[in-house]
């Protein structure tokens, strides 16, 4: 059992990342030098054949890597990482309605604003 550097949870050494906070430690970088930063999960993507992977970014040097999601990983943490961009959209969400109208779809948010 090892202790997670980020959140302090005890987990098995055979796992690639902490099952609670999904972080791991960046041991060596591409040049073979020690880094020691914490890989924090920034996003989730679905690899071909529907295999989900985490995209992790080193807080210290900015290196990126992907890691497969394990069975035991906390689903609430995964969901919060996946929905973080949606909580912080780069344009007003109302603009999406204009766009779907242009595309001929039904993107009206009547259900959302209905009282």
């Amino acid at each position: 059992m090892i202790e997670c550097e980020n959140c302090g949870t005890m987990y098995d050494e055979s796992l690639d990342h902490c099952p609670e906070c999904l972080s791991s430690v960046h041991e060596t970088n591409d040049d073979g030098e020690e880094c020691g930063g914490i890989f924090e999960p920034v996003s989730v993507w679905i690899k071909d054949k529907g295999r989900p992977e985490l995209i992790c970014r080193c807080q210290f040097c900015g290196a990126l890597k992907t890691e497969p999601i394990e069975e035991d990983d906390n689903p609430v943490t995964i969901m919060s990482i996946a929905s973080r961009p949606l909580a912080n959209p780069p344009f007003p969400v109302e603009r999406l309605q204009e766009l779907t109208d242009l595309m001929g779809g039904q993107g009206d948010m009547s259900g959302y604003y209905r009282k």
Partner: protein
Amino acid sequence: MNRENKRRKYDKNYYKKNPCTDSFTCRNCGWPIVSAGAGSNHRNHCPNCLCSLHVDNEPGDRASDCGGIMEPIGVWVRGDGEWAIIHRCRRCGKLSSNRIAADDNPMKLMALAMKPVVSDFLDRGRLKEMLSSMQSQGDLI
């Protein structure tokens, strides 16, 4: 201008210091792209399909031998609240993160962000169970 052309040809770090203003066609979708309108001097990806090319090892050095198409695989929110696209090279699998531009296709960006949320890789039953067990602690009263 002649001197500028010479510098562009022989200075290896020219694009590290100067923005590239050439117009080009997207290798993936054929969209004609000009450098203006990105909201930044450095256009990185196609505003229509969000694909990029693997030409740099470090930003602006044009030193990569790969040249594969980098396709967008996800978005993440940077510390300043800005979105960045994560690109992955189709040929060699290199990952890179890039800021979104002002004229990027908003539908495509939103589709990219929604992809993991709507897919069913998470066990809905387990998620529901977990949320209901958290309710006793996260009570608002």
